[in-house]
């Protein structure tokens, strides 16, 4: 094989493999002799001298290449700017705690959405599923007990809410994987159905009388100064990130999004896996619904129409490709906080908070454009 051809990644980052490999191989005079064969002589085995600076360089290169590194930079710049402009108001525990609490629900949805988008799918229904699960949980708790309910009824309600979310997700997954209906249409349908059914169950009136034990602890309580909501969201994020990066389930999620037919030929049960991924997304929407219920002590039926799009925007901002096969949970974490920080900063600065939508919309388009550029560069190689 002619190894004069590019053997390097074609990401947009500077300082790529070519430079690194050539300099390290050129050290040995014999190999450098025939320039065309230099790479032919480099060995397949992992680097024989895994030196630390080399590892660091690789890591740096990978970071530069990923979208999420750039968005992380944007986030840092935003936070620094707001901190400088409003040192007494922005970088305070109180303020940041509020931002994090507001972002917790979206972050949990975003984790599930990341999995779905990595499979080259999409889930527009999470906002409605969130509402539906919240209604099911609230109805269960208020149905078998009242505001003073003990942990038993609360737990039953939570389980019912989670099950409802997972069921919607599994239904989405079944229709996408088995019935082969495009995910956009399936989840557009279930978006309407889940919200409609939630309204039918409640006759359009928010359910009140959620047990105070729930709202006082999970809803508004803190552990070591950190709100429970934030703790749970971070826990979900860490678990989601680990599962995606280090387990068979995560690896196969990438494989299916990258080339579903290759995954099938490799013996991966693609349809079942897709159902699991959508079910996971639904389950997390159910969890988000429960947390929202606990926080506001009432179902917020009308308050989640933008959640699905917000989660998709966060996922994409975080560098996950809508074409599948690429993405990280850490990126989504950053992607959730950019709009949250922007909105918070604008309010503190006295700028109309509506500018946040404008700014996030622009950044979103830029992020997808960058993704397109990178794909084109890769395909040309």
């Amino acid at each position, binding site marked *: *094989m*002619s190894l004069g051809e590019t053997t390097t990644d074609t990401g947009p980052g500077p300082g790529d493999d070519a430079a690194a490999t050539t300099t390290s191989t050129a050290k040995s005079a014999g190999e450098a002799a025939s320039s065309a064969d230099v790479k032919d002589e480099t060995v397949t*085995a992992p680097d024989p001298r895994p030196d630390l600076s080399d590892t660091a360089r690789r890591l740096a290169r990978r970071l530069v290449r990923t979208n999420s590194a750039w968005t992380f930079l944007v986030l840092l710049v935003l936070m620094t700017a707001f901190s400088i402009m409003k040192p007494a108001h922005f970088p305070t525990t109180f303020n940041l705690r509020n931002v994090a609490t507001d972002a917790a629900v979206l972050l949990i949805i975003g984790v599930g959405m990341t999995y779905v988008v990595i499979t080259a799918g999409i889930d527009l229904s999470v906002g409605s599923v969130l509402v539906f699960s919240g209604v099911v949980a609230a109805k269960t708790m208020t149905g078998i007990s009242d505001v003073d309910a003990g942990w038993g009824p609360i737990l039953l309600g939570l389980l019912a809410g989670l099950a409802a979310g997972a069921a919607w997700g599994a239904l989405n997954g079944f229709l996408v994987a088995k019935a082969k209906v495009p995910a956009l249409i399936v989840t557009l349908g279930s978006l309407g159905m889940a919200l409609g059914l939630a309204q039918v169950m409640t006759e359009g009136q928010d359910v009140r009388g959620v047990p105070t034990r729930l709202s006082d602890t999970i809803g508004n309580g803190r552990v070591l100064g950190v709100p429970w909501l934030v703790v749970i969201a971070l826990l979900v994020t860490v678990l989601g990130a680990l599962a995606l990066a280090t387990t068979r389930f995560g*690896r196969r999620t990438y494989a299916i999004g*990258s*080339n579903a037919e290759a995954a099938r*030929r490799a013996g991966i049960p693609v349809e079942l896996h897709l159902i699991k991924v959508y079910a996971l997304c639904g389950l997390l929407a159910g969890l988000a619904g429960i947390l929202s219920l606990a926080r506001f002590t009432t179902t917020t039926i009308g308050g989640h129409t933008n959640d699905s799009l917000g989660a998709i925007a966060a996922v994409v901002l975080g560098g996950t490709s809508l074409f599948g*096969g690429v993405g990280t949970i850490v990126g989504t974490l950053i992607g959730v906080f950019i709009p949250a920080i922007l909105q918070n900063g604008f309010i503190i600065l006295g700028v109309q908070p509506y500018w946040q939508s404008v700014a996030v919309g622009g950044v979103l388009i830029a992020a997808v454009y960058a993704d397109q550029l990178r794909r084109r560069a890769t395909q040309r190689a």
Partner: protein
Amino acid sequence: MSPATSISEGYSASASPDAPPVLELRGINKSFGPVHVLRDVDLTVRAGEVTALVGDNGAGKSTLVKCIGGIHPADSGSYLFEGQPVKVDSPRAAAELGVEIVYQDLALCDNLDIVQNMFLGRETTKRFVLDEVTMEQLAADTLASLSVRTVTSVRQRVASLSGGQRQTVAIAKAVLWNSKVVVLDEPTAALGVAQTAQVLELVRRLADKGLAVVLISHNMNDVFAVADRIAVLYLGRMTAQVSTSDVTHSQVVELITTGRGAATRREAPDEPNGTAGADGTSEWKNGERP
């Protein structure tokens, strides 16, 4: 089946004419709706040999490969593995027997790296966590055992590889699993001269290590360079399965294009032997007759 650092050693490397068949297909039929693609196809594949499967475009070669690989299980016919009738109705069933396919379109995941692709669907784990160290080592060892020196890092994304390198990765993936039969569907179709030579060399090496290899190719020079036997598919029928040394280029070409030819009379005593030579150096002249 567990990954192996070296190729299966269960077979002798010599291609004796009486080596027992590893894989036998008998009377395979396959239709896609009204299209009857494979008709009563027989195929015998022996250890230590390269069996070339040739035929015109649309003859059904890739379909036969997909039957062997469990992607499109045959409608009827029998599938014998090491003499035993088996049911291969999924890629996993084929893999469990030790039958690996390198598909025409390679079926690699561009966004994953070489190691991740080689272990796709059969990832090694330690207590639920992917065992990256072991997988990376086995991948590197397998490439080394195939004397592949063209890949600089096993952690390169497949998207960044050249055509020949991708082919190499696909082949290495197929032999990683102690496989006994490796089927390659037109592995050299998209390659340049130098890359083709390397892949053919690799194919020959697999057979010399004792694997049963099926090679699909359009190029008569390639076929005569590495194949021990040639099976000719014509409009979904297996018209001949002959020893390479018993036929000439032109006879094979005639079989491919007309489904008939002198080669089918290979048992005839007056059949000239070895006119084509198995070294692949001879030129194929159209219309040449022995």
